[in-house]
Structure formats: structure tokens, C-alpha cells
């Protein structure tokens, strides 16, 4: 049932995700610095950070329970699973049947719940604030993401991410106007879910505006390293999901070695371009007040529903 070469391909995809994800974060940070006329940190900065954090002792707050210590590992595990499901190089993934696109949303939800609960565990004012805001962003973003997935799934007649990519990339080329709406909505959602600028600022420690940072204030050492790594894996997974839905060309259909090798530079190129765009968005936008976030994500939700309606009204053969 599961071929050896498929399994190797799968493990390779996971290893690639683990290796590339911090690089992607570093690249986005670099582009941001350039666009803002700052001297950029080196591209390898995230790896140095991870290495440093893993070396440090864990300083655990006195009121921390075991849930607090488990949460970073669970979050990391969820993100590894997400990266294993989303096709980055090839659609022949033995783990793909484990979860389709709907379950993928569930994986992100599980990680979110654990980190939000961990944030509430110590019982500090910023922790609970972060947990509450994270859940707020979560319940606004999740329906929009599901509607995007619905639109794409209706085009491909499947919710399996691998099948969607195969349908969109390897069959006759159609122009789907609904995908344009869905694409914009997906961009909005990814910005919010990855704690990026219009909704949250990954570089901030300005106390009253932070969301993601507020939740992880009390983490240190290896726990913090895992959370940072998981956050970059999440960005990587979202980027790959966006590429799979909207720019799927170049993802190999089988598990042949040359096709996989050819897919790697293409993936790196696409991610690099995506990183530049993300840095651009983050530079030209200001961070929204927290209560403007519902409007931002409400727009995303409406766009996604509009995309679905366009699909149902215009693109279905009557």
C-alpha cells in the first residue's frame, strides 16, 4: 500500500520543510529590512537563534503546569504533520490520506488551542490577553479559510490536497475567476494566521498590540525554540498551501527522483518570490487596531463566500 520510494519522498519533504522553514522566515526578515532601509540580519539568523535557544536553560515560571511544558511539543508536532500533508514537491505523499484540506484546518486549530491554553496557564495579564486575542483571530480566520478550501474543493471535486493539486496543475488549463477571489481571501487569512503585519507584528514587543508574542512571553530555552520553529513551519505550510492551490505548476505528480529534483529549485524560487511579496505587504501596511481585525477578516470571509458563489453561479455548467 505504501511504497518505499513514496515513504522516502515523504520523509524528504518533511526534512526539507524543517530545513527550509527557518530560512523562509530569515528571508522575509531580510527583505523587510532592505525595504525599510535597515541593514539586514544574515539569512542564517533564525538558525543561530534556534541553536542559541536550544542551548539555554529553560526558565519555567513558578505557576506553570505540565500543560505548559507539553504545548510547544504538540504545536511542533502539529506543524510537522501539516507540512507532511501539504504537497510541496510531489503529490505522491503516503501521509496525505491522513488528513484532507478540512482536517488540515483542524490541525492548525489543534495547535492554536494548545498554545492559547498554554498562554493562560501561568495566569499573567499578558498571557491571557494573548490567548484571548489569538482565539479571536482564530475564529475569524477559520471560516474564511474553510470557504477558500470549499471553493477550491468544488473545482477539483475533492478535498484531498493532493488531488486538488493534480486537478489544477496537470489537467487542461481553465481560468477560474472564483480562484481570484479565493486567492485574495487566502492571502488575508494567511497574514492573520501567521501573525503578520496588518493584524499582528512579529517584531513587536509593544505590550498592548501584541498577540502571538504575548502568548509566548513566558517561554524560554528549548520550548521557545520549538515554538519559533513551529511558527516558521506554519508560515512554510501556509505558503506551500497557497502555492498548491493557486500556483501548482511544477509540483511533481509521481515519486520519480528527477522530477523531485526538478521541483526543488522551482519551490525555492516560488517561496522566495512569495517572501518578497510578504515583506512588501508588511512594509506598506500599518498594523490595525485589534478591533479592526474583524473587519479585515470579515472582508476575507466575504471574498471567500463570493468566490464560492462565483463558482456556483458562473462556472457550473447548467
Amino acid at each position, binding site marked *: 500500500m505504501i511504497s518505499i520510494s513514496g515513504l522516502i519522498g515523504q520523509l524528504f519533504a518533511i526534512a526539507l520543510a524543517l530545513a527550509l522553514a527557518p530560512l523562509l522566515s530569515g528571508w522575509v526578515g531580510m527583505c523587510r529590512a532592505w525595504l525599510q532601509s535597515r541593514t539586514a540580519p544574515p539569512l542564517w539568523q533564525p538558525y543561530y537563534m534556534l541553536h542559541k535557544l536550544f542551548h539555554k*536553560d529553560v*526558565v519555567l515560571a513558578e505557576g506553570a*503546569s505540565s500543560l505548559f511544558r507539553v504545548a510547544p511539543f504538540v504545536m*511542533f508536532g502539529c506543524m510537522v504533520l501539516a507540512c507532511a500533508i501539504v504537497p510541496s514537491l510531489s503529490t505522491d505523499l503516503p501521509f496525505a490520506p491522513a488528513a484532507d484540506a478540512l482536517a488540515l484546518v483542524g490541525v492548525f486549530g489543534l495547535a*492554536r488551542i494548545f498554545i492559547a491554553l498554554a498562554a493562560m496557564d501561568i495566569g499573567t495579564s499578558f498571557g491571557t490577553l494573548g*490567548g*484571548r486575542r489569538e482565539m479571536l483571530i482564530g475564529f475569524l480566520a477559520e471560516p474564511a479559510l474553510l470557504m477558500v478550501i470549499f471553493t477550491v474543493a468544488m473545482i477539483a471535486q475533492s478535498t*484531498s490536497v493532493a488531488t486538488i493539486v493534480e486537478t489544477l496543475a496537470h489537467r487542461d488549463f481553465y481560468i477560474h475567476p472564483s480562484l481570484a477571489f479565493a486567492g485574495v481571501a487566502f492571502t488575508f487569512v494567511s497574514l492573520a494566521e501567521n501573525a503578520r503585519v496588518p493584524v499582528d507584528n512579529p517584531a513587536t514587543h509593544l505590550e498592548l498590540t501584541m498577540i502571538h508574542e504575548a502568548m509566548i512571553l513566558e517561554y524560554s530555552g528549548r520550548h521557545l525554540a520549538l515554538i519559533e520553529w513551529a511558527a516558521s513551519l506554519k508560515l512554510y505550510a501556509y505558503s506551500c498551501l497557497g502555492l498548491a492551490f493557486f500556483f501548482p505548476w511544477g509540483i511533481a505528480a509521481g515519486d520519480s527522483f528527477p522530477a523531485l529534483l526538478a521541483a526543488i529549485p522551482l519551490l525555492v524560487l516560488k517561496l522566495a518570490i512569495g517572501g518578497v511579496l510578504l515583506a512588501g505587504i508588511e512594509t506598506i501596511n500599518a498594523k490595525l487596531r485589534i478591533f479592526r481585525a474583524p473587519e479585515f477578516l470579515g472582508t476575507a470571509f466575504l471574498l471567500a463566500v463570493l468566490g464560492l458563489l462565483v463558482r*456556483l453561479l458562473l462556472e457550473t455548467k447548467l
Partner: protein
Amino acid sequence: MPKLLAIDFLLILASAWAAIGLAGLAAPRNTRFISKILFPLGALVALCVGGVGLCALGAPAETAVLGIGLPDLPFHLRLDNLTAVFVMLLGCVSVGISIYAAGYFRDGAGTAPGLLCLEYHVFLASMLMVLLADDAYAFMVAWETMALSSFFLVTTNHQHAEIRRAGYLYLLIAHVGAIAILLSFGVMTANSGDYTFAGMRAQQLSPFWASAAYLLALVGFGAKAGLLPVHVWLPEAHPAAPSPVSALMSGVMLKTAIYGLLRVSFDLVGTPLWWWGVVALAVGLATALFGVLYATVQSDMKRLLAYSSIENIGLLAVGIGLALIFHSYRMEALAALALTAVFYHCLAHAGFKSLLFLCTGSVLHATKERNLGKLGGLIHRMPWVAWLALVGVIASAGLPPLSGFVSEWLLLQGFLFSPGLPHSWLNMVVPVAAALVALVAALAGFAMVKFYGIIFLGQMREAALKDAHDAGLWEKVGLVWLALLTLLLGVMPATVILRIDAATRQLLGKGLAERIDDHGWWLLAPIAPARASYAPILFLVTIVLSVWLGRWLVHRLYHGRVRRSPAWDCGYFFQGPRAQDTAEGFSQPIRRIFEPMFRMERHFPSARDTAPYYSVKVEDHFWHWLYLPIARLAGWISTLITNLQGGRIAIYLMYSFVTLIVLLLVARP
């Protein structure tokens, strides 16, 4: 010797429950005997009931006639696959609840333990009889027994006025519902005088009368289940009742209403019309959204769970509506998908909601506190309850790999197929309804984080919480049973669906079994693996493996050192428990974003207040716009009628005389 059928077993077990209840009366004040012998016996009977239900799935239907009741009107009973699913649910869930109850009920004020034992077991037996009933008469008798016994259980602590009030409201709405159900049965018998369900199936109702019967059933069973707008008893009765009773009512009794709705709409009234499904879908969506929004803003932990039950009932109604729409267009394969989602969600909700209610019971025992604002940090004192509650919370938030996610996934898959409907606008509107389902699911996550985070995490908000103790042995066993049920339903969906498929086949003539059977127990692919698949076991293994591997590698390559120090919190020095979010603070974003959905009375201090205070009181719009006007109307009519009561015999004689004259005029040949 005649062969003993499964239905005879069930009757024996129901009588056993009744006998256990009566045994409680023998020593009504002997708490030890009742809790350590009778309740475990009840759990044993429940285990047998669950087992018989499981075995009866897939077997041919069995009938029995019980010669009790009125002369010439015996009880007809029937055990078919639809009944068997719910019998299984009743048995499996009440095992855990009964074991828990063995450790829960103690001496104290309120109903004597012996009486409580009687009410509890009569409640269980009557739920079993509701499921088995095969004629309207037996059904109504069992239904009323169920309503009354649960009423007495709700009012266990009847010395409190608000609990008596909650019980009264429950009884009132239960009877409004019962009238609607009775009328629905009346319409379905169509003057034939045959009250058996077989007789109703044989009737050919005109579309008008069939619709009338369906709508009456929707109102009647909706009142028991908690559909809008007859949901108001739920958030009152659940906090009033002792926790095992709340668990039983929310986990099992609400499902008997779902059973009744399924029985009427798929089995008794004949072919459904397409708009029946739309009505159920719309009501269900409104109920689900309403329930989850109100769940997020509650400050009482049991009220929060009660509103969450309303949400889940709404989702069940959405599933029933979708199945009815597909069924009315004869798209049986898709109807089977939606109906399977309904059955699965019944099982899942019964498991995780009972678990959560029982956890609140343990918290209540340990702290004497239901108000979220006075709890916090209990994971340190009650690790068992806290970790088991986490299982329920994740399932209730509809997250993989536990049970709540499976049914949600099936339901969303059902929605994905709705563009294929042969109807000009339904095929566009119905998929968009999925957007609301997605919103409800996401909000459920918010409510559950609030529930768990505020009770079990953070700092203790009151000094008295330091003395909290973990649940006792009986309670732990009950909780573990329900958590295991939730886990099993989560990771073995294909196996479970293959079992309950018999019920789907009975109602629709088609099931999912032949498609699922090909892929092995670990993969759930209701249509085809390329179309959609979910393998929770693979999912679970990957996450557990990467958690374990990650931990091992980090400790191996680097180190596992840990130091303890006070929390940092950006250097702020004031870190007392009051600096945490309150229950009200946590839900403030919801109140702000969905402001029109709530009826709020707020007080904000001005800048010059010397003694500033904040307050917010959230009320249900339905109370103000529906129930209070009806209550006023009823009061007004009663005052009018009291005018008739003059107190003089001559006037009363006159009334009789006038009535007689009017009757004679009307009934003139």
C-alpha cells in the same frame, strides 16, 4: 423453551433498572448501600443495554406486545436498527455516568438518596422505553415518565427558589412539546384509530397533512432537544440539576428527541418534501449560532455547557435538514452521508458533553463554586479531572483527532456535495450555509478555551481553592470511561460507521458501508479516497511520534535542564490573580463583535467616579421579545377570566344555563 430475543433482554434490563430504583426505597437514607451497591448495579445493567444495542445493530427487527396499559390498548414494542443505535448510545454513556454517580451523591440537603436512586433509574428505564415504543400510546407514556422523572431529578435541591423555578420552566416547556408531539401523532393516524407506528406508516397522507405532522414533530421534539425558540429551559435546568443528571439529560435525553425527530421524519410520515429539510436546516443554523455565541459569554460553567449543548443540537438539526433535502430528491448516497454525520454526532456529543458535565460536577464538589470568576488554577489540585476535561474540550471544539471532528468533517463533506442538487437556488444557498457551520465550529473553540482556561489554568482566583481535592476513585473511573469513548469514536470512525450503517440503510435504503469497507479500519473515505479521506490513527501517530521524537532529540542533542523562577510578564511586578482575565473579560471581544445578538445592560464608570464599578448583564432576546409578552398575555387573560368569578351561586347557575342554551343552538339537528 422459547428463544429469548434481544428485545426481551432489553425489557428485562428495563425492569432491572426499575427494580434497582425500588430497592433504593427500601433504605432511603442509607447512602452507603445506595451509592456503593445500587448505582454500580445500575451501571452493570447499562453495560448490558449497550451490549444488546450493539449486537442488535444489523439484525432484523424484533417486535413484542406487552399486555399492560389500558384494555384493548397494549404496548407495542419494536427493536429495529434505528432504535438499536440509540439504545447503544444510552447504554454506553450511562455506564460512565452511573459509575460516576456512585461516587457523587452524598448525604446532604435535598431529596433523600433512596428517592433519588428511584428517580434516576426510572429516568433511565423510561428513556429505554421511549426508544422501544412502537405505538403512539406507549411512546407518550414513556415520554411523560421521562419528563416527570427528570423534572424530579432537576429539582433535587428544591429548597432553593431558583431551582424550583428552573424545574417549573422545564416542566412547562416539556409539556408544550408533548402536546405538539401528541398532535403530530394524531395527524399521522389520520382518523384511522390505529395508533401503532405500523399503522401510521401505512397511511397515505396528503402533502398538507404530512407537512403539518412534520412541523408539529419538529416543534415538539425541538422543545425537548432545545431548538430555537423553545430552548430557554436548557440553560436553566442544567445548572440546577446535580451534575450526573445534567450529564444524563444533555448526553442522552436530548438524543431521544433527535431519535423522535428521525423516527417521524424519515420513517413515519412517508416521503419528505424538499422544504422540510430547508426548515430544519435554517432552524438548526440559527440554533447553533445562537447557542455558541451565548456559550462564549456565560460566567457559570454549567450554563456555558448548556448553551454549548444547544449549539450541538443545532448542528444535529442542520445534519437532519441536509439529509432530508438529499432524501427528498432521492439522492440517497448523499443523504446517507449527512445522516451518518447525524448519528455520529449524537454518539460523539453524548460522550464528550457527559464527560464535561461530570468534570464540572467534580469541580463543584471540590470547590462549591460554579462561577467561573471564582475558579482558576485547578490543574494543580485536580490533575485527573483537568486532563480528562481536556479530552472533552478538544472533542467539543471539533478538533482532530477526537470524536467531535469526525461528525463535523462528515457534515462538511455533505455540504460539499450540495451543488449537485437539482433545484434552481438550493444548490447555491445550501453550500453557503456551510460557511455558518464553519463559523459555529470556530466559535466553539473559543468557548471551550474559555471554559478550560478559566477553570483549570492560570492562578487561583480565590484562596479557598487551595483546599480543592481531586475526584474520588468512582468518579475517576466514570470520567475515564467517557474519555475512552470519546477517544475511540475519534480514532476509529470507519469501524463505528460500519456498525451504525444498518440504521442508515434502514431509513434510506442505502448506506456508506460498501464504500468504506474497501479501505480498512484505519481510513475513513466515505466516497472515494481520492475525493476525501481522513485517517485519524495515522494523524494521532504522526503527532505523538513527532512530539516524542522531538523531545528525545532535543534532550539528547542539547540538554533537559529546567530552572524555576517567578513569572516574567514583561517585568510587571503586580501579578496577582486579579490581573488575569475574568470570565467576562475573556468574552468581551464576542460581546463587542456580535453586539446586536445580545440584550445587554452595561454600566461603565465615568472618569470622576470615586467608587467605580463595571457591570454587564447579558440576557436572551427571546425572553424579552417572546416569553415575557406571552407570560403577560397569559396573565392578562387570567385576570379577565377571574372577572367571571363573582362568588355568587346564582351567577354560576346562569353561566351553566347560557352554556346549555348555546350548546343546544349549536348542536341543533
